């Protein structure tokens, strides 16, 4: 059983060294344009191609392709099957298969959805694979995110390995005591509470200790805090973030206008 702790791939390339906010704004702007921009294909393909370029510069193309396949392959297969065979808008018959037929409209619809999903996935991968989660949290805090919210984003990443280890211990302990995890439906339902409850109770017991530890270390103090790492930022990146934001806003507005005037 593997619980992944991060998609981050360490590296020293130009893309890795970009400020986290720059990459965050890129992936958000790309998602907005892919799903909300005018025109169907172009708005999806251009941000996706740019993200592939970024991943290539970061030396992560191979890993990204594996991720995309792993996350989207089953979905793609089902999309083409369901919409090719059963999309209610199917008019043009491509292949006849007994009582069913494969329709062109459904296939085109499925292809558009797949292209959009691939584009949005590579855009977010170009961000998450090259950015250490801790650096993202720090960047957001420096940009004015309340410290309590920053804690909520960062702390689960640190708690996760610890609790994931406990999952296995509790599973093993309950099975050693004779808990039936196989068998008929009723037996499996009865095993649910003994598996889940001890884990949740023990996690909740930690909550009090954690909050005391935080308070003792001045978590609620309002004085400014010093960070060990410094995130390099450049004026050019600052401008780039604004340009990307404005471009996305403009294309979203254009997309609304385009849809209101008969675009799909």
């Amino acid at each position: 059983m593997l619980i992944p702790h991060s998609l981050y791939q360490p590296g020293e390339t130009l893309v890795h060294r970009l400020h986290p906010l720059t990459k965050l704004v890129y992936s958000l702007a790309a998602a907005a344009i892919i799903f909300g921009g005018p025109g169907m294909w172009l708005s999806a393909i251009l941000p996706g191609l740019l993200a592939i370029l970024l991943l290539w510069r970061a030396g992560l193309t191979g890993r990204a392709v594996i991720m995309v396949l792993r996350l989207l392959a089953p979905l793609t297969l089902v999309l083409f099957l369901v919409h090719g065979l059963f999309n209610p808008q199917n008019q043009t018959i491509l292949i006849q298969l007994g009582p069913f037929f494969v329709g062109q409209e459904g296939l085109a619809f499925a292809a558009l959805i797949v292209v959009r999903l691939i584009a949005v996935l590579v855009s977010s991968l170009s961000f998450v694979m090259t950015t250490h989660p801790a650096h993202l949290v720090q960047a957001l805090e420096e940009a004015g995110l309340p410290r309590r919210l920053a804690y909520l984003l960062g702390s689960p990443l640190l708690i996760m390995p610890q609790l994931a280890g406990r999952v296995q211990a509790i599973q093993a302990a309950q099975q050693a005591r004779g808990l039936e995890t196989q068998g008929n439906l009723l037996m499996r339902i009865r095993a649910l509470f003994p598996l889940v409850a001890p884990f949740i109770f023990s996690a909740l017991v930690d909550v009090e200790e954690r909050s005391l530890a935080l308070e003792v270390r001045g978590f609620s103090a309002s004085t400014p805090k010093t960070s060990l790492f410094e995130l390099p930022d450049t004026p050019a990146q600052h401008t780039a973030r604004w340009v990307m934001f404005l471009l996305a806003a403009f294309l979203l507005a254009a997309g609304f206008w385009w849809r209101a005037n008969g675009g799909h």
Partner: protein
Amino acid sequence: MSLKEQLKKDFSTITLTLMAVAIVLNIVLGQVVSLLKLPIFLDSIGTVLVALLAGPWAAALTGLLTNLIWGLISDPVAAAFAPVALIIGLAAGLCAKYGLFKKWWQAIISGVIITLALSIIAIPIRVYMFGGVTGSGADFITAYLLATGRDLFSAVIVTVIGDNLIDKVVTALLAWGIVKGLPKRFTARFPRASAVTE
């Protein structure tokens, strides 16, 4: 009580640490239940626990952040469903606030309400972003309904509700049972817990 005071009370340090642990529970617990091969995933049990102990706002934020963090560490597609997780927290919190989590049968009703609430958000996301399919076994039902002449939207309504109903009812029941089983000295630290325990 002014909004600022209410927010301060709702987001005390102990509530924040509870939310952080709940986010991890949401992500990790699915692995435990997959062992039992039941049609449930329990990926919102932490959110519902926060809803019962700390109210709708803290729970909504827990759900939202769960999916954003999930997107960050393992599956960017999960981030697309962050608004759904937010609604789950909000709905569960409101159910608890209005006394729908006092008895076990009320928890079942709350589970149904949560399912209906999340469907309002989940259905447009599934239809518009994912073409109505998810790559899971539920797609057979979508395909069947499409083949019998339904449109995509109503086919997805059926699969989303069918997919979530059992899971959310079990989640609500488990969360209710766990909050009932927590020691008083623990629940007393959360201002909202009395809506469930008393």
